[in-house]
């Protein structure tokens, strides 16, 4: 047996240890990013989430001004904290529309009454169809859509107060 082959197991061991340390130090991003970033919002038309508010369709997102589209649900705990941030965004001029995933009108109304209502329009997506069509994989998620209805940015997870300037920049860039 040649000397090189004798050291092969050691080399394999070193390779495994280095791989493990590398992946522990820089974990893989397990978020599933939408491949529609940079592409037009797919055609959809959702019924209103609550009777007193306008419904949401793809046409409402191509009106010439950029929109923030927030995918939320009354049963989603991080969404509660996100409402405050969305309201701060709205106060600084952002147009925010909502897509309520797997939700009932009464539950949405109670959620908005309890936590606040930053939404101009709310579409009700009872079987996650539009959520899947957008390439979104959970709640909450937020898309920035430009005036032509093209997706410019996808934010996975709740928006933090610290993210507000970044979202406003994205909206500015989408004009």
């Amino acid at each position, binding site marked *: 047996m040649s000397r090189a082959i004798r050291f092969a197991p050691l080399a394999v061991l070193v390779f495994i240890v280095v791989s493990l340390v590398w992946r522990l130090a820089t974990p893989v991003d397990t978020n599933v990013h*939408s*491949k529609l970033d940079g592409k037009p919002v797919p055609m959809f038309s959702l019924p209103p989430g609550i009777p007193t508010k306008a419904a949401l369709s793809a046409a409402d997102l191509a009106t010439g001004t950029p929109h923030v589209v927030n995918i939320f649900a009354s*049963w989603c705990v991080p969404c509660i904290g996100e409402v405050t941030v969305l309201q701060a965004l709205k106060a600084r001029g952002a147009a925010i529309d909502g897509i309520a995933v797997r939700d*009932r009108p009464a539950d949405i109304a109670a959620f908005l009454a309890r936590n606040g209502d930053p939404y101009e329009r709310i579409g009700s997506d*009872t079987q*996650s169809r539009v959520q899947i069509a957008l*390439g979104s*994989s959970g709640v909450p998620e937020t898309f920035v859509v430009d005036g032509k209805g093209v997706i410019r940015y996808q934010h996975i997870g709740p928006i933090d107060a610290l993210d507000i300037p970044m979202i406003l920049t994205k909206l500015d860039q989408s004009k």
Partner: protein
Amino acid sequence: MKRLTLLACLFATQPVAANSNLPPANWAYRQVSDPTQEASAHALIGELRCLVCQGQSIADSDAELAGDMRDLVRRRIAAGERSSDVRAWLVQRYGTWVSYRPTREPAAWPLWLAPAALLIAGGFLIRRRVRMTSGN
């Protein structure tokens, strides 16, 4: 008293809801009546990856989103779409990540070449062994 209040609080807690209050989608736990369509839907469902329980197929996962994806697959196949088109539609949204079937992209080449490479390497090993024993 404080302890009693804490104890009362403990019993008053409810698990935080992680799921919606809506029933599963129509085709989430139901089969399509046409056996050929169901067979092709079932095959595709086993090869699509759950977005919530990453590592499970949507056939295995009980996540609501997986149920909604099964509904989407069965609904489209029942409407006459080919299963390859449904897969392509999902890949367009979530990338090749969502499909378990290996692609022909360069990143998957080692996977396709590995069996041939291992067979050839094994052949060489056996040839050497045979030569060594016959040489003795």
